[in-house]
């Protein structure tokens, strides 16, 4: 278990003090995949670097399995770091070493003999699916392959915790998916606790069980991924859930069309689009003027602006129909939206 207690970190720079973290309290359970999401500059990297004391917190403590990491000597810290390894956005492989030698690197640091280290490194390259790249240099690999080598390297010392700082942010969506799949496999097969730092919600949705939202150094929301994203209360959370912005641009009014704002608060997503289904069920074809919705798990969030012809009666029918679907709020929009 990793406990962050009242963690604060400030940097003194030429133009004043920067408070990168403010009283962060989090508990990460053994064996889970925990996400920390926030915009650029929110303090995510600082937070993750405090966990292995690459950055000393200004205040507060990091407690891993009842040991206060901040109280350790440099020597003990180096030993502990073999147990809390890290992967990065830029992979950070040694460019003048082959992939195999890169994976051997942490074992060399730990003083393992060459032959043994090589054997272990080879096994790990197989685990990440790159046994044929053992003698290639990082420059000869794609981004996804480099991250796989970095993962193999991070696993070499058999850690209990893997920290991923924007590990997929430099990768395309398909590669991101495959790396996340690998991370999930590693989490399951080796029982490694994983902390994923990202600015992309899709990453959290895909692999994390719990999430904390970090905004300007403060944890603004925390909990199960489903419930945090289902009901984003803070402005920061809403920005992340609806990055395009959920304020609707209302087009010019036309004729006797009436407008309805439909807010989805976690409605069950159905196989058939709701509006199409409504046309079939009540015989009113609504015009979707704009929509900003997204699915999280199997729930729909966001809102939609409908144009409905046919006066008061039709509007009432539509409201009635949609509200029956559950977790949907419908309100009529007047000119002054």
């Amino acid at each position, binding site marked *: 278990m990793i406990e962050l207690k009242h963690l604060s970190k400030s940097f003194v720079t030429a133009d004043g003090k920067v408070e990168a973290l403010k009283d962060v309290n989090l508990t990460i359970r053994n064996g889970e995949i925990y996400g920390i999401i926030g915009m650029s500059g929110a303090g995510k990297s600082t937070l993750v670097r405090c966990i292995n004391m690459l950055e000393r917190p200004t205040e507060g403590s990091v407690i891993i399995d009842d040991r206060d990491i901040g109280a350790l000597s440099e020597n003990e810290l180096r030993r502990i770091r073999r147990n809390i390894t890290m992967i990065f956005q*830029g992979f950070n492989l040694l460019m*003048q070493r082959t992939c195999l030698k890169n994976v051997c690197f942490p074992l060399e*640091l730990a003083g393992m003999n060459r032959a043994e280290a090589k054997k272990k490194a080879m096994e790990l390259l197989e685990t990440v699916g790159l046994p044929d790249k053992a003698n290639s240099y990082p420059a000869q690999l794609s981004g996804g392959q480099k991250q796989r080598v970095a993962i193999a390297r991070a696993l070499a010392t058999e850690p209990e915790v893997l920290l991923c700082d924007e590990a997929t942010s430099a990768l395309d969506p398909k590669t991101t998916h495959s790396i996340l799949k690998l991370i999930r496999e590693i989490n399951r097969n080796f029982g490694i606790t994983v902390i994923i730092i990202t600015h992309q919600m899709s990453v959290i949705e895909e692999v994390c069980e719990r999430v904390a939202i970090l905004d300007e150094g403060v944890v603004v929301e925390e909990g199960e991924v489903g419930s945090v994203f289902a009901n984003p209360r803070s402005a920061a959370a809403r920005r992340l859930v609806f990055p395009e912005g959920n304020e609707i641009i209302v087009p010019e009014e036309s004729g006797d069309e009436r407008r309805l704002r439909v807010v989805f608060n976690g409605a069950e997503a159905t196989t058939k689009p709701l509006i199409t289904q409504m046309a079939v069920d009540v015989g009113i074809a609504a015009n979707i003027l704009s929509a900003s919705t997204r699915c999280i798990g199997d729930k729909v969030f966001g809102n939609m602006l409908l144009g409905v012809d046919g006066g008061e009666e039709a509007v009432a029918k539509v409201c009635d129909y949609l509200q029956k679907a559950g977790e949907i709020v419908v309100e009529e929009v007047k000119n002054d939206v």
Partner: protein
Amino acid sequence: MFDGTFSFEALQDAMPILLNEFPLAVWETVYVTILSTAFAIIIGLPLGVLLVAGDKNGVLPLPRGVMSVLGVVINLLRSVPFLILMILVFPLTRLIVGTTVGTVASIVPLVIAAFPFVARLVESSLRELDPNIIEAAQSMGASPFQIIMKVMIPESVPSLISNFTIAITTILGYSAMSGIIGGGGLGKIAINYGYYRYQYLIMFVAVILLIILVQIFQSVGDRWAIHSDKRLKR
């Protein structure tokens, strides 16, 4: 002034010198240059590492006083003109070699002049390294010494080779200069025959040989640097 430099008579005069003295002079220049560079690297490399690692954001921050002294000493040595430095280190040369004249004796001032230069070159090579790579090594529990020996130096090898090539060609030029006060090699021949006896043909040949040597060192160094760089896809 150069009238008759390339005349038949001049060539006749020069021939015995070209045949008898030049082979040895070329050899002296080459080995003085290589030995001096080697010693300058032996001293300059650790100092260059210290300049980077000892920095306040480095892997092994040293007290500010130590770093200032180091910086000042290096700058001081670098700002003394080579010929003056050569005279200044006469006592040291005598202590080490037993004499201040001759080919071997010129190695001492060459090393003293070159190691601060090499230290700065090493410093610039090591600063090119991506700090994230060092951070990654720290995150794996590397000690400062391990980071220096296993990350900073090996990852900078191509850049170090390029910079050592610059060092060796510069030292070659200095070694020629050392001919003025007692050093051996091509510089001595160029000065003795060209400057003192007006046998300009010999001076030209010596200069051309120096240029050829620079070219050889430079192209071998360039090729080696490129060949050693695993960042280049092949």
